[in-house]
């Protein structure tokens, strides 16, 4: 019996690392490939997590893997091609790197929506317009959120669905985690500045997770966060660099104009652009939202359309941290199961 035990995992965010540690623990030879200099992926950009304000660093530390006899980690490896020859997968980047594996696990994660594409919101033009990720950076630094001129904001508006549920951005799906992020960040703003008014502009509040709705209640009850049902139509800059917002208060059926000192855009999750590259020369496929397509979205979520390639985390669809970790373990289980069934057949 030939031992087929080599697994390549693309992406060393929390999904890739969690799967790597499970599979290495089961005795497989795992190669973890990361395109950045360091592991951790997108979660490195976050400060605190919903719904409990725990530190994202704590999660990063918990899932952190280090190389051992079963696990090797290669950073700066931007894999752009997967081919299968003689029953083996060959992974290569644009330089000379080649990695061979019996099975591949995709954990390539997501990209953040580029908010400059929503030109009507003026991100990149008006300096008091920031994204949810910019806010996390401020929060992580331990500083307080201030206006461009260093002043305490009197009013902050948080905009839901930026680059999500929007044909104009080419993303018609829901990014799922933005609503609860908006509620979390609203509370964080009022914790920084108790006198600051915070308004969330939403279309539907999709607070699906456990404890998410109670965070919403807490935001209203203890932090006076206000919610306006209406998609923001435009932001303009005023002479004092303050911002003017226009939306409809759809629950009243009246247009609304508001000034705000800072606007936070809740940018959605997009599929990575490299996904399309990875689909060349194999039967991997993308879904209508450019994420990797599952063989079946109910019972084979982690199984791709190419036999031997599995998927974990938010390269399948937008996911929260806990869903990502569960998805990784589920993928690891399926990888293990796949090896076992091959051996039984042989």
């Amino acid at each position: 019996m030939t031992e087929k035990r080599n697994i390549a995992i693309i992406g060393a965010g929390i999904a890739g690392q969690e799967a790597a540690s499970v599979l290495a623990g089961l005795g497989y030879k795992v190669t973890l490939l990361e395109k950045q200099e360091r592991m951790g992926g997108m979660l490195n950009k976050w400060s605190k997590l919903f719904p409990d304000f725990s530190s994202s660093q704590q999660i990063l530390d918990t899932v952190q893997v280090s190389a051992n006899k079963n696990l090797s980690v290669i950073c700066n490896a931007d894999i752009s091609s997967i081919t299968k020859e003689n029953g083996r997968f060959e992974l290569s980047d644009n330089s000379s790197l080649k990695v061979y594996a019996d099975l591949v696990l995709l954990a390539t994660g997501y990209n953040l929506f580029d908010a400059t594409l929503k030109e009507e919101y003026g991100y990149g033009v008006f300096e008091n317009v920031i994204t949810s990720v910019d806010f996390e950076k401020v929060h992580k630094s331990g500083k307080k959120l201030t206006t461009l001129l260093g002043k305490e904001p009197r009013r902050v508006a948080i905009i839901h669905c930026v680059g999500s549920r929007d044909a104009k951005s080419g993303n018609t799906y829901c990014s799922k985690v933005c609503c609860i992020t908006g509620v979390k960040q609203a509370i964080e703003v009022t914790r920084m500045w108790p006198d600051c008014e915070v308004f969330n502009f939403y279309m539907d509040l999709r607070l699906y997770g456990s404890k998410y709705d109670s965070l919403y209640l807490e935001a209203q009850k203890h932090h006076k966060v206000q919610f306006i049902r209406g998609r923001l139509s435009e932001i303009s800059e005023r002479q004092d660099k303050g911002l003017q917002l226009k939306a409809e208060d759809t629950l009243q059926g009246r247009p609304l104009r508001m000034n705000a000192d800072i606007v936070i855009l809740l940018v959605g999750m997009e599929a990575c652009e490299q996904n399309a590259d990875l689909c060349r020369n194999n039967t991997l496929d993308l879904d209508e939202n450019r994420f990797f397509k599952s063989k079946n979205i109910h019972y084979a979520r982690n199984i791709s359309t190419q036999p031997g390639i599995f998927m974990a985390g938010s390269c399948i669809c937008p996911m929260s941290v806990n869903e990502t970790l569960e998805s990784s373990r589920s993928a690891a289980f399926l990888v293990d199961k796949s090896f076992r069934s091959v051996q039984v057949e042989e």
Partner: protein
Amino acid sequence: MRTLMQRLGEDVRLKEGLHACMSCGICTAVCPAAEYFEYDPRSIVVTVQSGNEAKIRKLIESDTIWMCGQCMSCKPRCPRNNCPGLIISVLRRVSQETGAFVKSRLGRQQYLILKTIGTNILETGYCVFPASVVPETHPEQGDVWRWIYQNKEAVYERVGANLDKEGPGAMRKIDRENLNELERIFAESGGNSFFSTIVKFSRAYAKESGFTDADGEPDMEKYTDFLLNEDNDEK
């Protein structure tokens, strides 16, 4: 008989303008009309989307559809690529074809627009021309316009226009042959019958409302006068 929804659906602009609305209000937020009238393009789209005949009937008989200014500011924003402004054009068309327009004050004004712009187009080949912008009915045009109006020939000649003369150039006279072509296009493409429909329903409404001459026929001068002075306070 065709339902209203069928009539609306026959217009290609409904297919272009209505995909699926999720009631986000992004259109109403920037709508210049929503700010000044009891008007909400979002709810109009929702009504059309519902396909409910009774509601659509009520809509095309109401003032609401006539409040849109056709600026199309709604168009570039909609996250579902709808265009409320275009849907409203279709509603207005059906409102006029079915005679529903005479049931609302703003709808009845179509007769006034027909008498001014419609007549201008057919008689001169232009939507507007200097003699049509009468200072008395256009006080906002100001003293400079009054001066231009009173010295048309000299002023237009001074700035190189060709007012009411043969040949090319600004404000030149459109010759008979071209006007005949225009008329034939209107006849061929339904423009004339659309005009007649507006006139027919307006005459019937005028008669019904007692604007008649000695023979009991509609007196359209009286009716026009009524329309011009019809209460413009928002109810």
